[in-house]
């Protein structure tokens, strides 16, 4: 049914789905009518005024965004419905209870809107508007001069307005113009804008799909890592048990201790993997309001752990460790401190002791780990993106420790001071971030 005209070809070239069909007609007196099927931005439906010049080029005369406030008016909504109904060629008479012209005026914010038909301005729109256009009637919604007519520079001229659809449905953009003014100037930007709007809708849909897929992917990754860490612990556990049996039978020999260290390293990796599960899954572990740990106890536990992993390395505790109750799980604090101590031992000079010190004041504790030498990495990027293995590690441990600290309301700073690397963990007794809801009595999966 569609005779593709040069005009429709232009519109197709601009990315429109054009089905002009018999509705594209030159009306008498040189009036131009464009009927464009487009996808207006669902968030900002608009009104377009288009025209076709004598050469058949599409030009824009004006376009008007319809504000959501306007759309909220009953009258405006009725207009949109009327125009949507038009797509299935229902006559306007079915909407006879709607003063659609007034609604159109309200929608446009115009001073005046009136219908001019060959039979006279007082004739009601008794049948399909598009059909009227197709039959060559001068269908004109005359909109107040201070708005559209001024925009058009056509004050006093007849202008037909078209209404773009709403929501995500394709809708008719109908425009008709009269007169030989330079309509061409503004047509293409409008059409591009309409095409952009359509593209935005498509992009929004694709974005939503991508976001859903990404969330699904994240969930799968987290499930995989959770299962993996659980299963790895089950692999390590019998080895730990076997080692214990060996120790009880032959004593803590050098070989047994070496195996213990290796298993401890494995456990440490599993713990880091477990931490990384949520760091990369994007969901921090819940912090229960009732969790409480003593900072000094945590420090001592971390010291015991690294002493087992690095036998022969000196770790000095400088001064008294602060005994302060803080609302963080011991496992989280211990994980962070263990990472700091492990980094210090791994990257500091082996002949110099690593120092651990702490202080408490104003309901906060600061724990500092100090080692000689330089930062293990050329910069502090390990607090952001992690490093490559050429530098002796991924830098992942520190990255994860930092994310853990941040997510829980703590702060971790690593810097080089006077030739020594200083890592300081600030542990507030009253963290600024709200505590997560208490862990519910969940069913075990």
């Amino acid at each position, binding site marked *: 049914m569609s005779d593709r005209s040069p005009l429709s070809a232009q519109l197709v070239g601009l990315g429109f789905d054009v089905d002009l069909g018999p509705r594209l007609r030159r009306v008498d007196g040189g009036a131009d009518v464009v009927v464009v099927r487009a996808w207006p931005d669902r968030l900002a439906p608009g009104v377009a005024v288009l025209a076709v010049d004598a050469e058949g080029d599409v030009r824009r005369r004006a376009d008007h965004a319809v504000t959501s406030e306007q759309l909220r008016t009953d009258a405006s909504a009725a207009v949109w419905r009327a125009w949507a109904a038009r797509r299935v060629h229902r006559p306007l008479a079915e909407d006879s209870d709607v003063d659609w012209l007034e609604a159109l005026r309200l929608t446009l914010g115009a001073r005046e809107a009136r219908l001019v038909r060959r039979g006279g301005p007082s004739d009601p729109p008794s049948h399909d508007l598009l059909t009227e256009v197709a039959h060559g009637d001068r269908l004109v919604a005359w909109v107040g001069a201070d708005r559209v007519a001024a925009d058009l520079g056509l004050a006093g001229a007849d202008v037909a307005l078209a209404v773009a659809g709403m929501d995500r449905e394709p809708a008719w953009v109908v425009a008709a113009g009269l007169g030989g003014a330079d309509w061409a100037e503004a047509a293409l930007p409008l059409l591009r804008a309409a095409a952009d709007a359509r593209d935005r809708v498509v992009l929004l849909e694709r974005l939503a799909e991508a976001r859903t897929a990404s969330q699904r992917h994240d969930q799968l990754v987290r499930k995989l890592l959770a299962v993996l860490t659980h299963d790895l612990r089950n692999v390590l*556990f*019998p080895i730990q*048990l076997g*080692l214990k*049996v060996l120790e009880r039978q032959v004593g803590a020999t050098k070989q047994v201790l070496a195996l213990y260290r290796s298993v401890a390293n494995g456990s440490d990796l599993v*713990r880091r993997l477990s931490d990384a599960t949520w760091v990369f899954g994007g969901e921090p572990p819940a912090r*229960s309001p009732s969790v409480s740990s003593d900072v000094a106890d945590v420090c001592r536990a971390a010291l015991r752990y690294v002493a087992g992993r690095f036998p022969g390395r000196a770790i000095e505790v400088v001064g008294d460790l602060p005994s302060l109750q803080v609302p963080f*799980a011991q496992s989280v604090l211990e994980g962070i401190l263990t990472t700091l101590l492990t980094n210090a031992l791994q990257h500091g000079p082996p002949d110099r002791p690593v120092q651990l010190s702490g202080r408490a004041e104003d309901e906060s504790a600061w724990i500092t780990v100090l080692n000689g030498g330089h930062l293990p990495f050329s910069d502090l990027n390990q607090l952001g993106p992690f490093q490559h293995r050429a530098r002796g590690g991924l830098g992942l441990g520190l990255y994860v420790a930092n994310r853990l600290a941040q997510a829980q309301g703590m702060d971790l700073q690593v810097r080089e001071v006077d030739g020594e690397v200083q890592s300081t963990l600030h542990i507030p007794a009253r963290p600024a971030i709200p505590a997560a809801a208490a862990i519910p*009595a969940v069913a075990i999966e």
Partner: protein
Amino acid sequence: MARRIVVVDDVEEVRAGLADLIDTDPDFTVAGVAASAEEALAAVDRCAADLVLADLILGVGPHGIQLTTGIKARHPLLPVLILSARPESTFAEQAVLAGAAGYLMKEDAANILFDAMHVAARGELWLSSAMRNHLLPAGITASGTPDQLEDRLAASLIRELRRGNRSLVGLARTLNMAQPAVEHALEGMRKHLGLPSRAALYLVVG
């Protein structure tokens, strides 16, 4: 005489490792092993167990806390220690409320297993210091001691709790009461002592 242990874990290597380790201590002997809750219930009856050491996750079947409830329904005084790779902060309290004698993290278990088993065998509650801090944070103390409770029911409850009878089903059966009535009485004791949770009450009473 060595105490008879039933080991429950769905991973064969873990069962074997635990059995080998337990058998190195003359105070304990492994009387049975089970891979599921169903097998465990049968083994407990068959072996006349003195203590059950159960994994939290038992494949796709009932988990260790459900198993604890099942065991306590039949044997209110039989201690059940839960062993898991899952964080104690998430599951230990549930386990204790079901009547478990304690909750051990697998990563620590090789070093603390015998201590925990001895404590549980005495009817006491074994929890890590971190978990004790979690349930009963420093600064929160009971307002009075359980022994000051003069109510006869309270005295009976305290006596049972100290014997290791901590499950609602076990207490209801022993004291010939309905479970809601037991729960109500425990809640009254908890409030009277100003404690934050029923698990904290178990810690204080025990």
